[in-house]
């Protein structure tokens, strides 16, 4: 498989703090690569090193098969990035911002191409309005448009759904899937929304305190068709007694004073629900918890 990004023993030291510690990972062509970690784990620092905003203390980075240090401009021509909160020039319009940044990429898109890009992110009707009048979500979309205007091969997205409403989040998700499946783009995406990563990532890297915890395909890490269900009952003791006599015993993962957690196929949730009623277990709540979230909390807590 074609390696688009190859990071080897990457380290960044800020005075006393080691933000990234001997990190190695690969992003393959066509991947939607989920980059996960808690706040302060070193995700942004890593991304900034990939984008030459920060100089590594040690280690090497290759992108498109070329060493980043010596081929910076050539590599960056083919990368589109959204870094944290995408800030643009508030005194310019969305259209003018897009045009300006396109020119910095060495491209001169036509009016039609610019409007098309704004259409994709849903800002075509606000093209000529000053960005100062935009909501945070709209500014985010301008940032995404800027990242895509020059048709890059590699797209790096650092928290791209920040500030977006559910529809906006869904739109970005669909856009990423489309870019990956229909246009063959390689996407590296870091996000706190594990549910989103779970839905789109083909490969996942989890880091904590600057170190790699695990890197593998999504399938190998968790079964996306499985889920965690947590119930809260009025009488947990009685509920446990009943469940121990039932077929659901093997699905129980853990229990506390008030809650019982199951791991089962998504398709089994309705059956569980009706069986609990039959067993006269009185529910306060029944909540699905994503398996990735569960996995993430387990590995980062253990670390």
């Amino acid at each position, binding site marked *: 498989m074609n390696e688009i990004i190859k990071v080897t023993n990457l380290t960044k030291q*800020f005075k006393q703090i080691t933000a990234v510690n001997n990190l190695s990972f690969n992003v393959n062509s066509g991947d939607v690569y989920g980059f996960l970690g808690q706040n302060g784990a070193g995700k942004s620092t890593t991304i900034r090193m990939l984008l030459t905003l920060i100089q590594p203390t040690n280690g090497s980075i290759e992108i498109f098969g070329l060493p980043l240090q010596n081929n910076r*401009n050539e590599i960056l*021509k083919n990368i589109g990035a959204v870094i944290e909160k995408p800030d643009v020039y508030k005194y310019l319009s969305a259209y003018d911002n897009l045009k300006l940044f396109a020119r910095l990429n060495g491209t001169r898109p036509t009016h039609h191409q610019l409007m098309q890009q704004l259409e994709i992110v849903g800002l075509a009707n606000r093209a000529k309005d000053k960005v100062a009048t935009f909501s945070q979500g709209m500014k985010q979309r301008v940032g995404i448009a800027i990242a895509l205007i020059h048709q890059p091969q590699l797209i790096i997205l650092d928290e791209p759904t920040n500030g977006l409403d559910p529809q906006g989040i869904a739109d970005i998700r669909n856009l990423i899937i489309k870019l990956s499946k229909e246009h063959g783009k390689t996407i590296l995406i870091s996000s706190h929304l594990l549910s989103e990563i779970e839905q789109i990532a083909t490969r996942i890297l989890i880091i904590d305190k600057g170190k790699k915890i695990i890197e593998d395909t999504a399938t190998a890490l968790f079964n996306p068709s499985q889920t965690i269900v947590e119930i809260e009952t009025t009488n947990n003791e009685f509920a446990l007694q009943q469940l121990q006599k039932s077929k659901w015993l093997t699905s129980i993962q853990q229990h506390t004073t008030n809650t019982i957690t199951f791991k089962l196929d998504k398709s089994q949730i309705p059956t569980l629900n009706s069986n609990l009623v039959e067993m006269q277990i009185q529910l306060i709540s029944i909540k699905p918890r994503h398996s990735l979230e569960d996995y993430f909390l387990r590995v980062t807590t253990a670390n």
Partner: protein
Amino acid sequence: MFTLIQIELYKIFNRPRTYIAFIAIAALTIIVQLGLKVDGKEYADFVMADLKNTFSIDGKIINGYFVCYVLLQLLLVHVPLLIALIAADMISGEANIGTLRLLLTKPISRVQFIIAKFIATCIYTVALLIWLAILGLLLSIFIFGTGDLLLLKNNYVVQLQQNDIFWRYTGAFLFAAIAMITVAAVGFFLSLFAENSIGPIVATMSIIIVCTILSTMSLPLFNLIKPYLFTTHLVTWKEFFDIKINNQNETIAGSIQNPAKIINSLTVLIAHIIILISITIFIFKKKDILS
């Protein structure tokens, strides 16, 4: 590089803050011109009071050339602040609004980025001075006409014939451009170290104020460092308005009393620009962008 400069100029001249300087210069110029139009004679009498004890001075003292000289004396002390408003914001402003990190992920070398920004800053500075020249010189000539320029120096008086003045103003404005670009270089350099433009602007002005004090006070300790301070050389544009005399004490038209001083000042100022921008490039190349 040309594209980068174009983009930087586009950003500068699309920003409302940029026009504060142009408006300020227009306002100050027009106020001074109005004042001199109304009370010019009184002003001239006041300035020449000592000379008029012994001499009678006839002729058009308050003319366009005189008014422009007064304006330059006043404004070239304050124009540095207006330059700092933009220059000190060039890098810190981008960091402040968050666009710096986006710009530096584009396929442009950091060296090109800094040079393009600085050239754009220089173009802004020159534009400001052209504006000052139009309002200060051309408009003054339009309002007050031309005539001989009578200048009172500390120890002597200089009278320049009216057909021997315009080229001096050209030289003076060109010199002032280099001087103001030096101020811009200071602001630009300081802009590197902040993520907010207020800090570099205040720092630039503080440096100018402190160095001006060192340049103007006649203390033996200060005299040692004066020749190396850029503020000492900011006012050398005045040397264009001093003239040589022959053995018969007649002025030699087209001459400058001390051209070596102008060349020396230009050398010091250009050296400051080169050193400051070189250091800026060196630091910026290696700087981690955390904004």
